Protein backbone atom coordinates (compact mmCIF):
# COMPACT_ATOMS: atom_id res chain seq x y z
CA UNK A 1 0.00 0.00 0.00
CA UNK A 2 1.60 3.24 -1.17
CA UNK A 3 0.83 6.50 0.65
CA UNK A 4 -0.55 9.40 -1.34
CA UNK A 5 1.24 11.84 0.95
CA UNK A 6 3.49 11.78 3.97
CA UNK A 7 5.58 13.92 6.34
CA UNK A 8 8.18 13.48 9.06
CA UNK A 9 9.33 15.83 11.77
CA UNK A 10 11.57 15.89 14.82
CA UNK A 11 11.08 18.21 17.75
CA UNK A 12 12.09 18.76 21.40
CA UNK A 13 10.15 16.98 24.13
CA UNK A 14 8.98 20.28 25.63
CA UNK A 15 5.40 20.54 26.84
CA UNK A 16 4.88 23.70 24.78
CA UNK A 17 5.20 21.45 21.71
CA UNK A 18 2.11 19.38 22.57
CA UNK A 19 -0.13 21.94 20.90
CA UNK A 20 2.25 22.30 17.97
CA UNK A 21 2.39 18.54 17.33
CA UNK A 22 -1.38 18.01 17.31
CA UNK A 23 -1.84 21.07 15.09
CA UNK A 24 0.60 19.69 12.51
CA UNK A 25 -0.97 16.22 12.66
CA UNK A 26 -4.51 17.52 12.27
CA UNK A 27 -3.44 19.93 9.53
CA UNK A 28 -1.98 17.02 7.58
CA UNK A 29 -5.02 14.78 8.18
CA UNK A 30 -7.21 17.65 6.92
CA UNK A 31 -6.09 16.68 3.41
CA UNK A 32 -8.51 13.72 3.71
CA UNK A 33 -11.42 16.11 4.31
CA UNK A 34 -12.33 14.73 7.75
CA UNK A 35 -15.32 15.73 9.86
CA UNK A 36 -14.81 17.98 12.87
CA UNK A 37 -15.19 14.95 15.13
CA UNK A 38 -12.55 12.94 13.24
CA UNK A 39 -10.14 15.87 13.44
CA UNK A 40 -10.77 16.22 17.18
CA UNK A 41 -10.12 12.49 17.64
CA UNK A 42 -6.77 12.79 15.85
CA UNK A 43 -5.75 15.87 17.83
CA UNK A 44 -6.62 14.17 21.10
CA UNK A 45 -4.86 10.87 20.32
CA UNK A 46 -1.69 12.64 19.11
CA UNK A 47 -1.72 14.90 22.16
CA UNK A 48 -1.83 11.82 24.42
CA UNK A 49 1.06 10.12 22.61
CA UNK A 50 3.25 13.22 22.61
CA UNK A 51 2.47 13.95 26.27
CA UNK A 52 3.56 10.41 27.12
CA UNK A 53 6.95 11.07 25.47
CA UNK A 54 7.37 14.32 27.40
CA UNK A 55 6.19 13.05 30.78
CA UNK A 56 7.36 9.44 30.74
CA UNK A 57 10.03 8.84 28.08
CA UNK A 58 12.25 11.79 29.02
CA UNK A 59 11.30 12.51 32.65
CA UNK A 60 14.51 14.33 33.56
CA UNK A 61 15.33 16.29 30.46
CA UNK A 62 14.64 17.10 26.86
CA UNK A 63 15.02 14.56 24.09
CA UNK A 64 13.85 14.10 20.54
CA UNK A 65 10.33 13.17 19.54
CA UNK A 66 10.00 11.79 16.00
CA UNK A 67 6.71 11.87 14.15
CA UNK A 68 6.05 10.39 10.76
CA UNK A 69 2.63 10.24 9.18
CA UNK A 70 1.07 9.13 5.91
CA UNK A 71 -2.32 9.21 4.27
CA UNK A 72 -3.65 6.60 1.87
CA UNK A 73 -6.21 6.40 -0.94
CA UNK A 74 -8.46 4.29 1.32
CA UNK A 75 -8.87 7.21 3.73
CA UNK A 76 -6.37 5.76 6.19
CA UNK A 77 -4.37 8.23 8.28
CA UNK A 78 -1.38 6.56 9.91
CA UNK A 79 0.92 8.28 12.38
CA UNK A 80 3.99 7.07 14.27
CA UNK A 81 5.14 8.88 17.40
CA UNK A 82 8.56 7.66 18.50
CA UNK A 83 11.07 8.52 21.21
CA UNK A 84 14.47 7.31 22.32
CA UNK A 85 13.57 7.57 25.97
CA UNK A 86 13.45 5.16 28.89
CA UNK A 87 10.95 2.70 27.42
CA UNK A 88 7.97 1.05 29.08
CA UNK A 89 8.57 -1.94 31.33
CA UNK A 90 5.08 -3.41 31.03
CA UNK A 91 3.12 -2.16 28.02
CA UNK A 92 -0.05 -4.09 28.91
CA UNK A 93 -0.05 -2.53 32.38
CA UNK A 94 0.58 0.95 30.94
CA UNK A 95 -2.43 0.50 28.65
CA UNK A 96 -4.83 -0.19 31.53
CA UNK A 97 -7.29 2.67 31.99
CA UNK A 98 -6.73 4.74 35.13
CA UNK A 99 -3.25 3.30 35.64
CA UNK A 100 -0.50 5.87 35.76
CA UNK A 101 3.04 5.11 36.84
CA UNK A 102 3.26 8.73 38.02
CA UNK A 103 -0.04 8.99 39.91
CA UNK A 104 -0.84 12.52 41.01
CA UNK A 105 -3.09 14.33 38.59
CA UNK A 106 -2.29 12.14 35.59
CA UNK A 107 -5.58 10.43 34.77
CA UNK A 108 -3.81 7.33 33.43
CA UNK A 109 -6.00 7.40 30.35
CA UNK A 110 -3.44 8.08 27.64
CA UNK A 111 -3.45 4.71 25.88
CA UNK A 112 -7.16 4.12 26.55
CA UNK A 113 -7.95 7.40 24.79
CA UNK A 114 -5.66 6.59 21.85
CA UNK A 115 -7.32 3.18 21.55
CA UNK A 116 -10.87 4.45 21.68
CA UNK A 117 -10.34 7.54 19.48
CA UNK A 118 -8.48 5.64 16.73
CA UNK A 119 -9.15 2.43 14.82
CA UNK A 120 -5.89 0.76 15.76
CA UNK A 121 -3.13 1.32 18.33
CA UNK A 122 0.15 -0.52 18.44
CA UNK A 123 2.92 0.04 20.95
CA UNK A 124 6.47 -1.26 20.66
CA UNK A 125 8.82 -0.48 23.51
CA UNK A 126 12.26 -1.52 24.65
CA UNK A 127 13.57 -0.57 28.07
CA UNK A 128 16.35 1.98 27.78
CA UNK A 129 15.85 2.30 24.01
CA UNK A 130 12.52 3.98 23.56
CA UNK A 131 8.92 3.58 22.47
CA UNK A 132 7.09 3.70 19.17
CA UNK A 133 3.34 4.26 19.12
CA UNK A 134 1.46 3.77 15.84
CA UNK A 135 -2.07 5.06 15.40
CA UNK A 136 -4.38 4.21 12.49
CA UNK A 137 -7.49 6.22 11.85
CA UNK A 138 -9.83 5.72 8.90
CA UNK A 139 -11.25 9.04 7.76
CA UNK A 140 -14.74 8.62 6.41
CA UNK A 141 -14.86 12.34 5.89
CA UNK A 142 -17.44 14.98 5.28
CA UNK A 143 -18.47 13.53 1.92
CA UNK A 144 -19.71 10.33 3.57
CA UNK A 145 -21.00 11.96 6.74
CA UNK A 146 -23.27 14.27 4.74
CA UNK A 147 -24.99 11.43 2.91
Amino acid at each position, binding site marked *: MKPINRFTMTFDSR*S*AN*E*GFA*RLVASGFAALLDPTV*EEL*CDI*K*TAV*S*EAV*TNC*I*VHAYPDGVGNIYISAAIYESGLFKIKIRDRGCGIEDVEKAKE*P*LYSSLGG*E*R*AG*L*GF*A*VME*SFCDKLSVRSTLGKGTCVTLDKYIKGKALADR
Partner: protein
Amino acid sequence: MEMITSGKCMTFFLSGEIDHHNAASIRKVIDEETDKLMPQVLVLDFSGVTFMDSSGVGLVMGRYRNVSAHGGRLEAVNLPPWCYKIMKMSGLEKIARIRMTGGKQ
Protein backbone atom coordinates in the same frame (compact mmCIF):
# COMPACT_ATOMS: atom_id res chain seq x y z
CA MET B 1 -9.92 32.77 33.59
CA GLU B 2 -13.21 34.34 34.63
CA MET B 3 -14.81 33.39 37.91
CA ILE B 4 -18.15 34.13 39.54
CA THR B 5 -18.90 33.55 43.20
CA SER B 6 -22.45 33.40 44.50
CA GLY B 7 -22.77 32.43 48.14
CA LYS B 8 -20.98 29.11 48.54
CA CYS B 9 -21.06 28.39 44.81
CA MET B 10 -18.04 29.14 42.64
CA THR B 11 -18.04 29.00 38.87
CA PHE B 12 -14.89 29.00 36.74
CA PHE B 13 -15.16 29.64 33.01
CA LEU B 14 -12.43 27.56 31.38
CA SER B 15 -11.27 28.60 27.94
CA GLY B 16 -8.79 27.68 25.23
CA GLU B 17 -6.93 24.39 25.12
CA ILE B 18 -6.60 22.07 28.11
CA ASP B 19 -3.58 19.79 27.73
CA HIS B 20 -0.70 18.71 29.97
CA HIS B 21 1.12 21.99 29.22
CA ASN B 22 -1.78 24.30 30.13
CA ALA B 23 -3.41 22.28 32.91
CA ALA B 24 -0.86 23.27 35.56
CA SER B 25 -1.65 26.99 35.45
CA ILE B 26 -5.43 26.40 35.34
CA ARG B 27 -5.13 24.09 38.35
CA LYS B 28 -3.13 26.68 40.28
CA VAL B 29 -5.72 29.42 39.78
CA ILE B 30 -8.68 27.21 40.73
CA ASP B 31 -6.94 25.76 43.79
CA GLU B 32 -5.87 29.16 45.13
CA GLU B 33 -9.43 30.47 44.92
CA THR B 34 -11.17 27.36 46.23
CA ASP B 35 -8.74 27.04 49.14
CA LYS B 36 -9.86 30.49 50.28
CA LEU B 37 -13.61 30.03 49.92
CA MET B 38 -14.13 26.25 50.34
CA PRO B 39 -17.18 26.25 48.04
CA GLN B 40 -20.07 23.85 48.57
CA VAL B 41 -20.52 23.72 44.82
CA LEU B 42 -17.64 24.08 42.40
CA VAL B 43 -18.83 24.59 38.84
CA LEU B 44 -16.43 24.22 35.93
CA ASP B 45 -17.91 25.71 32.77
CA PHE B 46 -16.32 24.26 29.63
CA SER B 47 -18.18 26.31 27.02
CA GLY B 48 -15.02 28.19 26.00
CA VAL B 49 -12.79 25.12 25.74
CA THR B 50 -11.56 24.48 22.19
CA PHE B 51 -9.54 21.33 22.89
CA MET B 52 -9.13 18.90 25.76
CA ASP B 53 -7.20 15.66 26.25
CA SER B 54 -6.96 13.37 29.30
CA SER B 55 -5.13 16.13 31.20
CA GLY B 56 -8.55 17.81 31.42
CA VAL B 57 -9.99 14.65 32.94
CA GLY B 58 -7.10 14.66 35.44
CA LEU B 59 -7.87 18.29 36.22
CA VAL B 60 -11.53 17.49 36.96
CA MET B 61 -10.58 14.41 39.00
CA GLY B 62 -8.18 16.42 41.13
CA ARG B 63 -10.67 19.26 41.75
CA TYR B 64 -13.36 16.70 42.61
CA ARG B 65 -11.03 15.18 45.18
CA ASN B 66 -10.31 18.57 46.76
CA VAL B 67 -13.90 19.79 46.87
CA SER B 68 -15.33 16.51 48.15
CA ALA B 69 -12.67 16.40 50.90
CA HIS B 70 -14.57 19.21 52.60
CA GLY B 71 -18.03 17.96 51.70
CA GLY B 72 -18.60 19.97 48.54
CA ARG B 73 -19.61 18.79 45.10
CA LEU B 74 -18.46 19.40 41.56
CA GLU B 75 -20.33 20.11 38.37
CA ALA B 76 -18.83 20.07 34.86
CA VAL B 77 -21.22 22.05 32.68
CA ASN B 78 -21.63 23.13 29.06
CA LEU B 79 -19.17 20.53 27.81
CA PRO B 80 -18.63 20.89 24.05
CA PRO B 81 -18.80 17.54 22.18
CA TRP B 82 -14.99 17.15 22.18
CA CYS B 83 -14.89 17.49 25.98
CA TYR B 84 -18.01 15.43 26.59
CA LYS B 85 -16.67 12.48 24.59
CA ILE B 86 -13.46 12.12 26.59
CA MET B 87 -15.21 12.76 29.93
CA LYS B 88 -17.73 10.03 29.12
CA MET B 89 -15.08 7.54 28.02
CA SER B 90 -13.02 8.17 31.15
CA GLY B 91 -15.77 6.61 33.26
CA LEU B 92 -15.33 9.44 35.75
CA GLU B 93 -19.08 9.60 36.34
CA LYS B 94 -19.00 6.06 37.68
CA ILE B 95 -16.40 6.74 40.34
CA ALA B 96 -17.30 10.32 41.15
CA ARG B 97 -20.60 12.06 41.78
CA ILE B 98 -20.20 14.71 39.13
CA ARG B 99 -23.05 16.35 37.27
CA MET B 100 -22.18 16.77 33.60
CA THR B 101 -24.09 18.75 31.02
CA GLY B 102 -23.49 19.47 27.36
CA GLY B 103 -22.24 17.29 24.57
CA LYS B 104 -24.47 18.66 21.81
CA GLN B 105 -23.07 20.28 18.66
